């Protein structure tokens, strides 16, 4: 048996919509098999994983809390990937954004003014963007592969945060725990509703997704992103510069990751500590692809991936399955998304041993 691909004349609209759903379905099937192998009831486990977190108000709030950073980071990454710039260091930009955004509340804990919060957010954006400027500079000036440099910077950012909270920024009254002082009330991102924990980061995420959707769809800049991503040569003829695009997309995604970082620290954690992210920067890569690099799709996929985090926690409590199962789910999902995307551009034919062709329309 052989698999043969045949290029479609036009991109299939049908499969553009079906492909992510098919990927989700396949992930659920394989997830059920994994639970079965672990000796748990497959359907019961899937229920605890993917349905139960949606049934209560507080866990819906948690969903928004987890989805916010994922969406914020992923919409930025989508612009990067569309323009063929491979920023995979969002986790590092998230960390640096969290650090620069926390400068004010850590150094001026007695400053009680409404102005502190907007300033923190702006500083977070700037920090994340500047950190993403390093791989952008290295790529445009020294021709250095941005995949490797942005990733190396993730490790460096993590160590820098670790040093800060164990060293100069440690709360002297914190019983030797590696944490900073808790932020003053004015420096905490407020909740949206009284009913739960979901805070303003979720609104930032929705606004960012809408704005980038508008840009990609109706503005020249969006067209520039797509053209340069598909063919740098064609872009040059249109007068677009790949170099400037590298800067634009890296700064944009870095800034959004930085905003995600400071919102997470300010809204959800309330202080800095050695670990501030369960891998949001990497999971956002999956979110971006599951959303087919479309900002509106990313809102939906961000919620789905947030659900895997919540389900992971629920399953840990109810089924004694380790939280690593969540990461397995996330990895599988990305695999299936990437395989299903083939259907959008190609028709797949299975060629059986006897030479008979079985046309698989799916």
């Amino acid at each position, binding site marked *: 048996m052989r698999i043969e691909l045949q290029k479609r004349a036009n991109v299939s609209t049908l499969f553009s919509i079906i492909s992510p759903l098919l990927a989700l379905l396949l992930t659920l099937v394989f997830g059920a098999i994994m639970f079965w192998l672990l000796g748990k009831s497959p359907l019961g486990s899937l229920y605890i994983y993917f349905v139960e977190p949606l049934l209560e108000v507080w866990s819906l709030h948690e969903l928004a809390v987890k989805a916010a950073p994922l969406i914020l980071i992923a919409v930025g990454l989508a612009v990067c990937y569309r323009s063929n710039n491979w920023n995979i260091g969002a986790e590092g930009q998230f960390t640096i954004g969290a650090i620069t955004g926390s400068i004010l509340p850590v150094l001026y804990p007695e400053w009680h003014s409404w102005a502190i919060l907007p300033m923190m957010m702006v500083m977070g954006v700037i920090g994340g963007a500047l950190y993403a400027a390093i791989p952008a500079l290295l790529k445009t000036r020294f021709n250095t*592969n941005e995949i490797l440099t942005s990733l*190396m910077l993730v490790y460096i950012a993590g160590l820098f945060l670790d040093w800060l909270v164990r060293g100069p920024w440690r709360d002297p009254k914190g019983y030797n725990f590696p944490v900073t002082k808790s932020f003053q009330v004015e420096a905490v991102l407020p909740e949206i509703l009284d009913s739960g924990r979901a805070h303003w980061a979720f609104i930032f995420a929705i606004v960012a997704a809408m704005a980038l959707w508008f840009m990609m769809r109706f503005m020249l800049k969006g067209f520039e992103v797509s053209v340069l991503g598909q063919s740098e040569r064609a872009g040059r003829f249109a007068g677009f510069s790949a170099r400037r695009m590298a800067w634009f997309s890296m700064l944009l995604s870095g800034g959004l990751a930085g905003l995600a970082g400071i919102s997470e620290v300010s809204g959800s954690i309330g202080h800095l500590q050695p670990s501030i992210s369960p891998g949001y920067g990497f999971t956002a890569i999956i979110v971006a692809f599951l959303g087919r690099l479309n900002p509106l799709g990313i809102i939906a996929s961000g919620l789905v991936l947030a659900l895997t985090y919540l389900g992971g926690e629920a399953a840990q409590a109810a089924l004694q399955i380790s939280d690593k199962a969540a*990461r397995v789910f996330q990895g599988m999902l990305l695999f299936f998304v990437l395989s299903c995307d083939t259907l959008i551009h190609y028709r797949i034919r299975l060629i059986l041993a006897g030479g008979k062709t079985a046309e698989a329309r799916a």
Partner: protein
Amino acid sequence: MFEAILLTVITASTPLVVAALGELVTERSGVLNLGVEGMMIMGAVCAFAAAQLSGSPYVGILAGIFGGGLFSLLFGFLTLTLVANQVATGLALTILGLGLSGQIGEVFVGQPGIKLQPIVFPILSDIPFFGRVLFSQDLIFYLSVALVVGINWFLFRSRTGLKLRAIGDSHSSAHALGINVIRTRYLAVMFGGACAGLAGAQLSLVYTPQWVENMSAGRGWIALALVVFASWRPWRILAGGYLFGAVGIGQLHAQIVAQNLGIVIPSQFLSALPYAATIVVLIIISHNRRTTLINTPASLGKPFVPDR
């Protein structure tokens, strides 16, 4: 003292060298597999599990090679058969590998591992100064040296190696000449996976004989940088691997020395050195666009769909 440092440098460098050599062959065939980190960690967990269950580190090595190779097949299927984006699929492989290895390795956390013992060559190992360093090592070290020689011969002296390089430079021309592009690339990807798996086995059987989640700690990514550093030549991988290994070990010793001298250098700054060094090295190697263009396999990362 000096001999001891040299021995630790070798132990730290071997996984980098082995993983980078595998990736070099993969990339020479025109496929960019960014999943080295994931294949390495899968190799590490398979090796550790097999060694624990069988009681033999050699079974562990085989399991590591097999695990890494099998895992890379997933990447091969997606990028070669389904022509998925290679960068994204490589990332997927790393994310899945880190998750899956954590899940598999859960039961082994905290168990004392079985260390792979060195194979001592009598007489040779008695040579003063470098005898013990070179001839009293574990199997994986010897394999790493053999791989450098073997891959160098294969790529530049054998017919199949020539074909592999032809595919990497122009898959369409190679296809027109009747070379089976997809099959060769599958084999190259699996070879890369097997090497990454072997490197992982070295981590969990030699470097730190135990299972710790995420124990590859970015070494797969450093191996990827090493391939660029070596401009796709096996001998330079050996040199580069030892350079990177030395930086990693050097920072550990610098911490001790600084402590003795009463200088306070935060340990985090020194731990960041290998990553910072990788960036610096990449800048030095890549800044000349022309030489980079000449050295890079021309169809690296480009999808190939055979026209029938």
